[in-house]
């Protein structure tokens, strides 16, 4: 990593910026800020829903109202709208998924944290694998293995085109689905962090390099702030898309015929 002039600013931003050192020097190298953030996210969600749903009232308190709004939103607007009445039994999973992705994404723009675990492919990959296993198990339970495979692999088409279509069906359902779920979330969070690094660090680089460029660095930082708001939108959108797609895959697995 090169440094610009006298400054110690790491420039340009690189993939190395995503691999943080362990929190306590010389201890377990896996215990980094990212690890800690995942634990915090899990703990925060568990505590939040336990506290807000303890002694539920008919007339909800404010905290209970927030928790119920989140759950109600996923239950009605995602699970029920996409999967149908049957989908309500998946609402707890979808809500957990939505909240976890949203919260871990949100760490990417919280001042002082500004690092999302989802900008490492490992976390979106695990979430995608969970969703993949879920919709396959649901489909196999609903139809039995043979009929589920027939439903997902054999489209309604004349027999002579089937050899052309079956490989496409197989790859798009069993390979591309988990892959795109993971990569979509990861790439959005990775790129978001990278863009913020470029504009924030770039401001410092310009400030240090040349007196004429110093005023421009202010523009760079303003851009960083504006892009943080753009990121806020991306964060919510990606959490929503991940949940909606999982629901739509479950719906596809449950459907009699596609």
């Amino acid at each position, binding site marked *: 990593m090169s440094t610009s002039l006298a400054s110690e600013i790491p420039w340009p931003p690189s993939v190395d910026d995503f691999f943080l050192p362990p929190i306590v020097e010389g201890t377990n190298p896996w215990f980094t800020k990212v690890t800690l953030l995942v634990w915090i996210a899990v703990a925060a969600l568990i505590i939040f829903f336990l506290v807000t749903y303890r002694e539920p009232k008919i007339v909800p308190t404010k905290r209970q109202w927030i928790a119920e709004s989140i759950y109600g939103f996923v239950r009605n607007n995602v699970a029920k709208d*996409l999967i149908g009445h049957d989908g309500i039994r998946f*609402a707890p999973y979808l809500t957990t998924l939505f909240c976890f992705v949203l919260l871990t994404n949100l760490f990417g723009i919280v001042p002082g944290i500004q690092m999302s675990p989802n900008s490492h492919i490992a976390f979106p990959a695990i979430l995608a694998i969970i969703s993949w296993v879920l919709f396959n198990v649901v489909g196999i339970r609903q139809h039995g293995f043979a009929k589920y495979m027939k439903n997902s692999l054999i489209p309604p088409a004349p027999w002579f085109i089937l050899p052309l279509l079956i490989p*496409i069906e197989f*790859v798009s359902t069993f390979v591309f689905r988990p892959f795109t779920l993971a990569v979509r979330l990861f790439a959005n969070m990775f790129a978001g962090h990278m863009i913020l690094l470029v504009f924030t660090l770039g401001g410092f680089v310009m400030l240090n390099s040349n007196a004429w460029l110093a005023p421009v660095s202010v523009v760079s930082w303003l851009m960083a702030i504006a892009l943080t708001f753009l990121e806020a939108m991306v964060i919510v959108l990606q959490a929503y898309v991940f949940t909606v797609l999982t*629901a*739509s895959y479950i719906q596809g697995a449950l459907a009699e015929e596609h």
Partner: protein
Amino acid sequence: MVRRVMAGDQSPQPPAGGAGQGWVAISYLIAGIAVWGFIGWLVDQRFDLGGVPIGIGAVVGAAGGIYLIVRRLGV
């Protein structure tokens, strides 16, 4: 823990979400091109035909993907 709001509501299933269907369509198209493009590449590696089978595979795969979109998502 869960309050069963409107538990008796048995409204008919609305059409699946537009975003989900859009991604399914895109994934068929790309999977078609990728799978048959890859098979074309394998054929090309085997018989050394100067890349022609890759192009044929990609076009045929795209056609297959579009056919699947029409059959699976079309009304």
